[in-house]
């Protein structure tokens, strides 16, 4: 099928959302809570676009592109004056929640908002409550953290405010966070996150670490992977494969070989 975006026609596939097409075609639309690793959520509302339905007699509406399924001949406008104003207002509100988040400041500036019209949150952290961390944690199958409470006071947290028993220290939450506000620390072979400590598995040969013991164990168990895959680091594994292969190679005089 084909959909029209800002006057140009693009190919789209059944089951896709409008934002999928926009991203594939590199059409710039801001979105803070959408990530392909997880289901669309519709929390930040920045990706809203105007759509016109040919099939519904030219019906127009503003929808979140991350959640709106494509359909043939759908017309999409990504930057109407109203949508731009809406994004400005949202960024204005986000700046009040997270006045110190560089990512929000930068995006707001792009939309001409340099200072919020509202009263900024005192002692603000940089969390915009997009829920990507909790959703990715669930997607990983860990469900270690979740949204706690509701409304303006909702926050991302661990069960009962204790160290989360289901966390594996995989850092998916850290890496997906659009404002980089989840803190962790790696010291030697110890990773600290969410008030818990994890052992980073050291390479049996060189000691280099990649992931935590808990994460490795879950991968071995859930994904049915052989335990010894996790004994060495990638560098040592490459060394080994090179050495093993070299045993199979019939080495000849290089110059001769190359000439031939």
């Amino acid at each position, binding site marked *: 099928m084909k959909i029209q975006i800002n006057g140009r026609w693009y190919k789209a596939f059944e089951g896709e959302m409008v934002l999928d097409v926009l991203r594939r075609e590199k059409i710039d639309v801001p979105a803070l809570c959408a990530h392909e690793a997880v289901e669309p*959520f*519709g*929390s*930040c*509302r920045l990706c*809203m676009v105007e759509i016109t339905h040919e099939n519904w007699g030219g019906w127009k509406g*503003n*929808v*979140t592109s991350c*959640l*709106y*399924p494509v359909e043939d001949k759908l017309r999409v406008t990504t930057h109407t004056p*109203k949508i731009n*104003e*809406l994004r400005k*207002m*949202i960024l204005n*509100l*986000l700046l*009040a*929640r997270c006045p110190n988040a560089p990512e929000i400041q930068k995006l707001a500036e792009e939309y001409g908002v340099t200072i919020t*019209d*509202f*009263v900024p949150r005192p002692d603000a952290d940089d969390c*915009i*409550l997009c*829920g990507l961390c909790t959703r990715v944690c669930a997607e990983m199958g860990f469900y270690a953290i979740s*949204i706690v*409470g*509701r*409304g*303006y*006071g*909702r926050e991302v947290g661990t069960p009962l405010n204790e160290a989360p028993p289901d966390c594996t220290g995989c850092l998916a939450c850290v890496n997906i966070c659009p404002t980089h506000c989840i803190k962790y620390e790696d010291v030697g072979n110890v990773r600290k996150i969410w008030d818990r400590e994890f052992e980073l598995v050291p390479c049996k040969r060189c000691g280099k670490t990649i992931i935590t013991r808990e994460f490795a164990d879950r991968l071995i168990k859930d994904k049915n992977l052989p335990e010894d895959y996790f004994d060495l680091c990638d560098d040592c594994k490459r060394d080994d494969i090179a050495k093993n292969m070299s045993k199979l190679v019939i080495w000849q005089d290089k110059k001769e070989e190359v000439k031939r």
Partner: protein
Amino acid sequence: MKIDSPQKLKEWRDRCLKKKAAAKNTIVVCFGPGCLASGCREVYAKFAEILEERKLKDITLKSVKKTGCHGLCEKGPLVVIEPEGIFYTRVKPAHVKDIIENTIINGEVIDKLLYKDPKTDKRIEKYHDIDFYKKQTRIALRNLGHIDPDDIEDYIAAGGYSAVVKVLTSLTPEEVIEEVSISGLRGRGGGGFPAGKKWATCRKVDADTHYVICNGDEGDPGAFMDRSIMEGDPHAVLEGMIICAYAVGARDAYIYVREEYPLAVQHLYKAIEDAMECGLLGENIMGTDFSLDIHVSRGGGAFVCGESSALMKSVAGDVGEPRAKYIHSVVKGLWDQPTVLNNVETFANVPEIINKGGEWFKSIGIETSTGTKAFSLVGKVENTGLIEVPMGITLREIIFDIGGGIKDGHKFKAVQTGGPSGGCLPETYLDESVDFDSLTKAGSMMGSGGMIVMDDRTCMVDVARYFLKFLVDESCGKDVPCREGLYQLHSLAVKVTEGKATEDDLALMEKLSEFIVIGSLCGLGKSGPNPFLSTVRYFRDEYLAHIRDKKCPGGVCRELITYEINDKCTGCLACIKPCPVDAISGEKKKIHVIDQALCTKCGACYAICQFDAIDIK
């Protein structure tokens, strides 16, 4: 006793009616939420105690019936003597002996317990003759106050389950949907979507299974219609749900009800048990291959669960967070299966539509909004209570005829409908028709049926602030415009009530509101700014008075008012003791003085003064 044919039901009904006719009198004690609060339990206990003592031949405890809400909560606890229909108000345990001795035994009416018409000051004996009831048409509330909700035989005697029997023995699902479509019944939960159309769409979706959900999560503060129906006539709700399940092809249905309504939960469980016992629920209902189980889902109390997608997540045991509804729940609802969701009142109407026909229902009300609507009429009216009126009635008729006008001779200012998502309408709309479309056009909405009357001592900015606070507390917080926007809108409203806002703030509030409406994910957010938008539309001068003159015309916003004692003061000392901060000083027969530095503007003195000697400035 299994009902498997129209004949069996008729026989049972006849037996029930005969039993009823045999009793000399029935003493009906209202157990509606209002009467429960005003002490009907003690009244009932007293009846039990005295009847036990007296050991009368034809009047025993069995003659005393606990029913659901009668409606006139203002005058509770209510006791009605059937079959005469003698209507006693404000009954205290102390009156019970007289009622038994005088009315029941000697047939004398006790004058002082009768309802006094506020207009004529005359006592009225029968409740059908009271203005409050005369203008009402009761369909959804038809059995409230008449039947014992815990006794299925009472419901059967009132013609109950005849609609289910009719449907299962003589109508195809399509015919049922057709009848509901003809009736023009629109969802009573607020949106007003045509029920027949919803059912038809759901039926057509090809899926493993279909679900029916009854929304009993009445979250509006100041509304108790659905609660009253579930408490007072649970079988009517079940009957409507059974008919709907048959029509759409559902095998399981859920009633989502707040745990905070323990009586409703208890009555629903009992009703389901009784209906299963007589074969009207469960496997192979009436010997047909239609089976249905109805489950009670006890909600945890979250206003956002009034939103269908949130409610369905809550039924599934999850956090009640709504999702975007680009795919409707009729197609993909509970556990991703096609689901019909209607509210309690909608379902309660259905049996009557089947019994009396869609055309009959359509003849009530107006063309685009057929039938009736239940409201809880509260606030500053004389007759607070639960009412049901034909669509198309005017607000004036409701407030002044049924409601008996404004309390204490004050002046009407506004009426709020639609709950927190609705709006406030001024005097100029009093003659407006009460129906889905007119209310929406006027900037409010029907909502589930809260109707709050406000007088000249109400501050409209404060009302907006109140609703915004409610919505801030109840927003699930999923999306930015609703979570952050309503929070900031509320903060700005507080600024106005404190006299600290500027006209720029008011402009910002209006702009912010516009984008909360466009940007929010679900209905809560989209309609969230309504309390502000409708008040600023009709009462802008009140906002400006707060902003420019630093005055609260309603005398409510504490930062902007002072309580002062005028020369009407007789020096009676009455106001001195109630003052919680000892701010009032004075001697007997001398005008008292309020120390403004101490006064917290709680209004205790104002409430107690008999001489109009306290001014709010």
